[in-house]
């Protein structure tokens, strides 16, 4: 698979999930223009990328979806649940195809047919006529009365091409538009030909094309990265223009130009000119203030009005110029200079207030703009998980290597009496220790991801399941940005799906039942993630019927999950907890949504595997809350699995200093204890089997004995084992319940075959 194809797969998945999300929000909260735009863009980009990797079936189907969304955007049709269903089905199909494409590099053989059927389904929502002809132009969002800024380049373009434009200007032009089109760098890959779009613009007056960021040298240029900016002035209809650019609304800006501005626009006005114009007008004010003392009143005021008018036209302020001109005419008829003076003073204020904007409420057409608000782009660096994993491992190794320094210091001190050197090594050790701890922490942070992605998919799940069951359920998610280790977040998906599914299927009543119970017909499932200290909590609550302990008791005894006498002794809370027992299902019938009796025990198993706990609280008639209490990071411990007395035990590798085989003749008995000499030290022997009250294997005099040497807190011992099995990275689960206070155990972990392994705390077991 080429890099381009790989990128397509990654991006397509992101777009699918984003579009799915947006479609669901759109259905729930209504079709706001921004929302439809987002969905539209996602489909459009998907279509474009499908074209680049040459998947025509996908492009054609997405094209149909795009047409449909365009119609919704124009308001030609309303979005409804069935239409959203179709759009989601389309995304599902794309998602499956992306999987196929990733696995085999191609779409399945029936892709064309599948795509055609879905495209037909999508097109069936279009009004009959729109099926054949391209959708009418999108209505551009307009804000009447809003002051519209005329881009500076418009004045420059008019100034430099004035004559040519005048020649092309039709007699009966009613409006003019400035079009600024900045294609995205990857537009060629989307199949766009920006020039082709510009060619279609009607009644072009001026056109300009230039590099967006100066052209690179030919040797460095990327021929397929578009680095152009296309600008034009047209006197065609806005709708017609908008229609041409309907597929690139985010890259184009269409601004109305008042016609008189177009006619009167003079060379560009810069700030220096602006102050010059102010000075000119101020001078006319001075002149008018003294004008009643002069003989030539008419000549004086007439000149002042003319100078001011010309200056304002030069400054691209036709409305102000007109106002001054009108005031000048009044002054001449009334023989009173004051109206003109007032007008000029107002002009000065207007100039100070809005140096470069034109009030768009002055003239009728051309008041709407299609501009995109600049979205801050979040820069994300994609790093493969394997690389992060390698970093985590390296940091782990560094911790071990650092620990060796402490040993070295001790040896220098003891064996070579080098206190000075030992102190120096210890100082270095401390410094490295701090840095390593920091490094380790930072690297673990890299693995922290928000639960957003997992929560996102739940919206879709709730929507689909509730629609299928004819229930009305809304999902409220909060705290999506809370972060936890990627391993934990990844593993959360399955349990959360079970919980949410269960809530919709079993927890939430039918709308009729809810009405009778006096509850709102729309049920709410809320899911909330939060961080408390170093724990990561997720609560899934519903406002459904709750879990009835009576029903649970009956089911539990029917299924024989708990002996009857034990069951009666249990409190209601403990009884409710039985829903987590394997094989428990309270649903009257097995449905294909849940109720196969495997849901809840899977939840508990998975959560416990990642070192978490599940608890449940429920009140009949009010609802159920399931609380997942998880660690934020998975504290992986490296353990050695050993066998003693026919059982397996785990020993934390941190405590193991070495493993040795010793021939029986080297073992000597000192009083009641056995021991052997290892590098000039006497190491006492402890039989692990004996320690654990397990039968000891009979020792043969000729076979070497196997020891795991443990050294901690200045003490040393050799634990005799029958065999060393594996070295594993595991998540330790602390001992719970009765065993919580048992000494000598660090915790338990599940082995690959489902066996529970006791992990020993060797420091406590040292004699």
């Amino acid at each position: 698979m080429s890099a381009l194809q790989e990128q397509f797969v990654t991006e397509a998945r992101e777009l699918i999930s984003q579009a799915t999300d947006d479609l669901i929000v759109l259905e729930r909260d209504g079709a706001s223009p921004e929302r439809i735009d987002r969905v539209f863009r996602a489909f459009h980009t998907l279509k474009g990328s499908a074209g680049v990797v040459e998947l025509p079936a996908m492009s054609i189907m997405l094209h149909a979806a795009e047409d449909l969304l365009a119609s919704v955007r124009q308001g030609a049709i309303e979005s409804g649940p069935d239409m959203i269903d179709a759009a989601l089905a389309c995304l599902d199909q794309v998602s499956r195809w992306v999987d196929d494409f990733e696995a085999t590099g191609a779409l399945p053989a029936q892709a064309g047919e599948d795509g055609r059927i879905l495209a037909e389904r999508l097109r069936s929502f279009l009004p009959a006529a729109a099926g054949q002809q391209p959708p009418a132009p999108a209505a551009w969002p307009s804000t009447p009365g809003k002051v519209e800024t005329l881009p500076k380049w418009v004045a420059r373009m008019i100034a430099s091409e004035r004559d040519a434009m005048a020649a092309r200007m039709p007699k009966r032009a009613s409006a003019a538009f400035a079009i600024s089109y900045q294609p995205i760098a990857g537009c060629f890959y989307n199949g766009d030909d920006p020039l082709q779009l510009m060619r279609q613009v009607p009644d072009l007056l001026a056109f300009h094309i230039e590099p967006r960021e100066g052209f690179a040298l030919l040797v460095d240029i990327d021929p397929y990265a578009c680095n152009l900016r296309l600008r034009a002035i047209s006197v065609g209809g806005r709708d017609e223009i908008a229609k041409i650019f309907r597929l690139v609304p985010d890259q184009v800006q269409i601004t109305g130009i008042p016609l008189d501005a177009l006619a009167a626009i003079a060379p560009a006005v810069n700030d220096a000119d602006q102050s010059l114009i102010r000075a000119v007008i101020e001078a006319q004010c001075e002149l008018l203030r003294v004008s009643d003392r002069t003989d030539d009143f008419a000549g004086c005021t007439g000149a002042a009005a003319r100078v001011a008018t010309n200056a304002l036209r030069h400054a691209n302020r036709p409305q102000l110029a007109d106002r001054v001109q009108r005031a000048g005419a009044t002054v001449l008829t009334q023989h009173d200079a004051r109206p003109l003076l007032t007008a000029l003073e107002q002009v000065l204020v207007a100039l100070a207030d809005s140096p470069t904007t034109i009030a768009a409420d002055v003239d009728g057409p051309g008041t709407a703009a299609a501009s995109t608000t600049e979205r801050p782009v979040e820069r994300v660096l994609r790093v493969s998980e394997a690389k992060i994993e390698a970093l985590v491992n390296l940091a782990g190794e560094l911790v071990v290597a650092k620990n060796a320094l402490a040993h070295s210091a001790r040896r220098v001190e003891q064996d070579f009496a080098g206190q000075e050197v030992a102190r120096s090594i210890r100082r270095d050790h401390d410094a490295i220790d701090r840095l390593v701890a920091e490094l380790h922490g930072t690297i673990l942070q890299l693995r922290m991801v928000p639960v957003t992605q997992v929560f996102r998919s739940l919206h879709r799940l709730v929507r689909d399941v509730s629609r299928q069951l004819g229930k009305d359920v809304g999902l409220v998610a909060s705290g999506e940005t809370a972060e936890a280790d990627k391993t934990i977040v990844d593993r959360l998906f399955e349990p959360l799906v079970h919980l949410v599914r269960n809530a919709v299927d079993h927890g939430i009543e039918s709308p009729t039942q809810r009405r009778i119970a006096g509850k709102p017909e729309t049920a709410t499932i809320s899911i909330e993630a939060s961080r408390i200290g170093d724990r990561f909590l997720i609560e899934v609550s519903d406002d459904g019927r709750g879990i009835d302990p009576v029903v649970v008791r009956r089911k539990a005894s029917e299924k024989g999950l708990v002996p009857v006498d034990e069951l009666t002794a249990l409190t209601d809370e403990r009884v409710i907890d039985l829903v987590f027992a394997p094989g428990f299902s309270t649903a009257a019938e097995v449905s294909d949504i849940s109720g196969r009796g495997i849901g809840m025990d899977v939840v508990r198993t998975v959560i416990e595997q990642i070192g978490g706990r599940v608890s449940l609280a429920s009140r009949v008639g009010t609802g159920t809350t399931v609380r997942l209490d998880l660690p934020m990071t998975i504290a992986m411990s490296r353990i050695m699995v050993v066998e003693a007395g026919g059982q397996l035990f785990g020993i934390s590798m941190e405590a193991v200093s070495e493993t040795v085989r010793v021939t029986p003749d080297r073992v000597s008995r000192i009083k009641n204890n056995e021991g052997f000499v290892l590098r000039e030290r006497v190491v006492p022997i402890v039989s692990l089997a004996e320690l654990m009250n397990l039968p000891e294997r009979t020792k043969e005099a000729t076979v070497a004995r196997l020891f795991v040497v443990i050294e901690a807190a200045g003490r040393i011992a050799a634990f005799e084992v029958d065999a060393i099995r594996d070295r594993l990275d595991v998540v330790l689960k602390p001992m719970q319940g009765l065993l919580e206070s048992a000494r000598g155990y660090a915790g338990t972990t599940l082995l690959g075959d489902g066996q529970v392994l006791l992990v020993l705390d060797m420091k406590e077991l040292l004699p």
Partner: protein
Amino acid sequence: MTVRRDDNGVIVLEGVCPVEDAEPLLQMLQAMPTADIDWQACHQLHTAVLQLVLASGRIPIGPCGDAWVAQWLAPKLTQNEAAR
């Protein structure tokens, strides 16, 4: 191929020049830093191809066969040249 080099060492654009022509055109422009470009026989120019013509800074031998480009772009190319 609608981009070729003729016997006089001129890079000739012919017929419809689609986006795929950008790559070979760039190679020719790089290989022949002084070669002229002749676009008289080109009826339709893709933006990517035009972008390279602009980036090369060379004034093509015209008029451009693509009438729209000839009307809206070619005059400016000569103006720019005059300005230099």
